[in-house]
């Protein structure tokens, strides 16, 4: 009997959760792109390689959910700050509601199963 492999499941889960984390991270205001990556990387298991966050930021900006602006830096290149657009704020509310429902439903399901086996 082979070992259980949940890689695919983890990959799919991580993709969706990363967007959820990103919109929540930006909910309180703009953040420098480098700091966005560093803060997301602090969530264990969320970001395997740091560079992958930048394509996601770019894609969400193109989709209209994020804003981006450059600000001159006294030391080094101009800094790019990312924030949530009004569409991004709406998406965040819907995503958090969906996430809450999912967590609640899963918790109830787990509780029922444990009750049946207990």
């Amino acid at each position, binding site marked *: 009997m082979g070992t259980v492999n949940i890689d695919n499941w983890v*990959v799919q889960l991580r993709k969706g959760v990363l967007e959820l984390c990103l919109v929540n991270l930006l909910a309180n205001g703009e953040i420098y792109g480098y700091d966005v990556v560093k803060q997301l990387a602090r969530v264990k298991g969320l970001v*395997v*390689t740091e*560079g992958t966050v930048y394509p996601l930021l770019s894609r969400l900006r193109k989709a209209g959910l994020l804003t981006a602006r450059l600000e001159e830096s006294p030391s080094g290149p101009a800094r790019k700050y990312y924030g949530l657009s009004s569409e991004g704020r709406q*998406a965040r509310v819907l995503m958090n509601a969906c996430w809450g429902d999912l967590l609640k439903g899963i918790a109830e399901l787990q509780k029922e199963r444990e009750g049946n086996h207990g």
Partner: protein
Amino acid sequence: MAEWTPEAREYLEGYLAQVSALARQKGDDADEIAADLRVHITCEAEKAVDAVVTLDDLRRTIAVVGTPEQVIDAGLPTAIPGTPRPSVAREDAPTPLLSPMPPAPRARSSVGCWIVGIVAAVLCAIAIPAIVIAGLLLVRAGKRAESMYMYHVESAVRFDRGVYTANEKAVIDSLRTIASAQTQYHAYTRSYATTIGALYAPDDLQMQFIDAELAIGTKQGYVFSITSTDPAARWKCEAKPSVQSKDGARAFTTDETGVIFCDGRPI
């Protein structure tokens, strides 16, 4: 601000060029992603050193940032032959699952299809000769890329060292496959493969990261070999023409960063 050695600077440009080419293939904003990555890598590399950023410093930084394939998630097969699970290298490149206003599916009329087809054909007829002529002019002038922006006019196979033959492109693809396979192998074993044969276990579907032909080490008239002085962290794969005069004169290499080199220079 720290100084950079010329080798480190050139390596970074090669890395960003490969990220840009893959991003363009995927339809992403290649300029934006490459610019963001440049800032990130520069910050990280300079933070870790006192005065001079060397090639080794940069390689360590890129190992954390990810290979071009990991960053962009392009050009990888949906499943490696004989491997029932998805590529580990794909996992870290999220595609946005969200859209603010998902467009409703619309039925397209046959007239519309014809118009779109004709317009596409006309555009191809104009664009292809223009690209070919531009490529020939660049090759004749012997110009090298001086910045990432020259990559705007290239296709995925047009790099700063000129146009590669179809066989050489296939060799570059094989090296990309090996780099991706090494990432997966490392995820499973916590160590990189030290021989190319280790990336294909005939009796174990879970350990077939490359195809059987490539695992032999000879493909497309090239000999592929992997070496490693520190299997936990580093490896290098060389692809040398088996018969130089017949198969090409150029040798290619890659390593744990995923950057492809031609005759020792990043492509």
